[in-house]
């Protein structure tokens, strides 16, 4: 089933065009990887999906992005509601400088998801368990989240993102600041999370895209060159640019 449908998406930073006429369908409960060389626009596209580009004054987005058949670029779309449904994990772990518990409980609190302390405790526990972090932090829930290791911080950020039970999770190079062991943990986690969430991951690592994703989109110079099942893109791409990038001839 198709969860997100992007049609004719153009993005401009001031006068400079960053994305050209992107059209991409994203399958529900699957992992879609966006790959491509630096500056190709894959992160920009990712940020279109939860309207994070709104934060940048000079950025303009054109075109339609349908999530559950609703155009999020429409004026009637409420970004607060949208971002409740579309969680995001960033490149660098960015926990709030608060306790582990407060990091997780923040989203449910502002969206009024827990009626009591017990409910909140439950949300925190399940979110941390889903993020495979519970065993490591259950005794230090009230210590600062910034005191965890890099990999733990990133899993904390994932736990924070899933605490509001989003339908989609956007991940912007979530492992680029982590060591191989932490990366493996996160990749395992992504595999687990796709049962309940639709995941879109931007990555620089071809191997990672091949390992975790079912679908892949290849971006180059602001254009979506090719997209399809990961198997096909990696084994038998239609476009020579894709072929060149995947075999390491550029990028």
């Amino acid at each position: 089933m198709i969860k997100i449908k992007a049609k004719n998406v153009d993005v401009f930073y001031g006068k400079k065009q960053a994305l050209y006429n992107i059209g991409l369908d994203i399958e529900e409960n699957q992992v879609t990887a966006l790959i491509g060389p630096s500056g190709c626009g894959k992160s920009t596209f990712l940020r279109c999906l939860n309207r994070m580009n709104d934060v940048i004054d000079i950025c303009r987005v054109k075109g339609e992005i349908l999530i559950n058949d609703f155009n999020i670029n429409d004026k009637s779309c409420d970004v607060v509601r949208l971002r409740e449904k579309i969680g995001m994990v960033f490149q660098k772990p960015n926990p709030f400088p608060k306790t582990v518990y407060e990091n997780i409980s923040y989203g449910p609190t502002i969206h009024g998801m827990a009626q009591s302390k017990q409910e909140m405790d439950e949300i925190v526990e399940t979110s941390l368990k889903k993020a495979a972090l519970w065993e490591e932090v259950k005794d230090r829930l009230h210590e600062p989240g910034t005191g965890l290791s890099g990999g733990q911080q990133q899993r904390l950020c994932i736990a924070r993102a899933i605490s509001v039970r989003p339908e989609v999770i956007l991940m912007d190079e979530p492992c680029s600041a982590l060591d191989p062991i932490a990366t493996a943990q996160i990749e395992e986690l992504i595999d687990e999370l796709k049962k309940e969430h639709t995941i879109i991951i931007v990555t620089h690592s071809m191997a990672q895209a091949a390992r975790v994703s079912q679908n892949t989109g290849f971006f180059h110079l602001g254009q979506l060159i090719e997209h399809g099942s990961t198997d096909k893109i990696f084994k038998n791409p239609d476009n020579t640019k894709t072929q060149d990038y995947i075999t390491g001839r550029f990028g």
Partner: protein
Amino acid sequence: MNKSKEQLLNKRYKAEQRFRLYGLGAIFMALLFLTIFIFKIFSTGYSAFQKTWLIVPVTFDAELMMLEQNPSNEDLQDADYYDIALKSMADLDPNANEDQENELKRMVSYFFEKEIKNELLNNPGLIGKTKEVYLTASDDLDQVFKGNYPRDLPEDQRRVSDYQLKIFDQLVAKGKVESKFNISFFTYADSREPELAGIASSFMGSIFSILVCLMIAFPVAVLAAIYLEEFAPKNRFTDFIEVNINNLAAVPSIVFGLLGLGVLLAIFHLPRSTPLVGGITLSLMTLPTIIIAARASLKAVPPSIREAALAMGASRMQTTMHHTVPLSMPGTLSGTIIGLAQALGETAPLILIGMVAFVNTIPGSPMDPAASLPVQIYIWAESAERGFVEKVSACIMVLLGFLIIMNLFAQIIRHKFEKKWS
């Protein structure tokens, strides 16, 4: 070839060495000036914290005080102390003529009557008895006792007569002159008599001014900073505002004084010489300082924190209030304290709005006339009496102490509460 390279290297090392020497020299100069400044203030000012007292036997003669038998407390309040006060001074020299009696009287402060009265009120059993009472020495004798007065000047150029000096020396020889910690410097308001002048009025005036300034400047500045940093669109209009705020920080303080005079006093008719007007005027001055500090500390909050909150579905307002502002508070607060410390040392605008007036009462609220510490320094520095010289330095010491404490406090807030990012 090799040799010239070595020469070049040597030259570079020498240049670096010279540069270090210049730097050290500059630091040495700065420290030297600072030391001279502090030494001068302390050496002039420390004696102001001591006060000279004459110990004079006073006979509490009921008849002279016009008191009946078994007087009530009220009777004691209303009794006439002038005569016994005068008599006890005159008795220092039984052979004194009328002129000399007058000179004897002027050896103590004009508070001597009150001091004698307080002695009796504290101990009503003294009626009919004689007791040695501590009387504040006149400012000139105070200076003589502290060794600040040139005794070898010809008599007609001195404010102390030979006769007074003779009697004073007799008292000193008998051990009837004592120097004690000068509590009244902190508890008395200003006075024309240096021995009775204190900083209570100006100290309270400064406190009230700073409080008014804080209450106005802090909320306005923080709101302005948050709006400009987090909400305002970046366009020409906001650029224009930003430039003007920075310009405002560079406006000479006396201009704000004129503004206070022309607007607060002339148009709104707020009470003249009060910490209320002083505080409002100072808050105009402090505003840009706090705005700039608050904006800088908002800017220092990493954008990743904002993005994290926004991506969780927090509104802009929630992102700002839950995350950005709390994280920027340490910087904002220390900037505020530094702004207030500047305001505390400000003199010119306060002179213009009339806080330079002679105030011999201690203000109980920001609506009462008062001076402020720096203005008090100015007033005393203008006065002719020798006794005020040490008072000026002492007042500077109090003001500096105040400023150092505030700056220390700002440093502590900054270091203790500033969050570390990941």
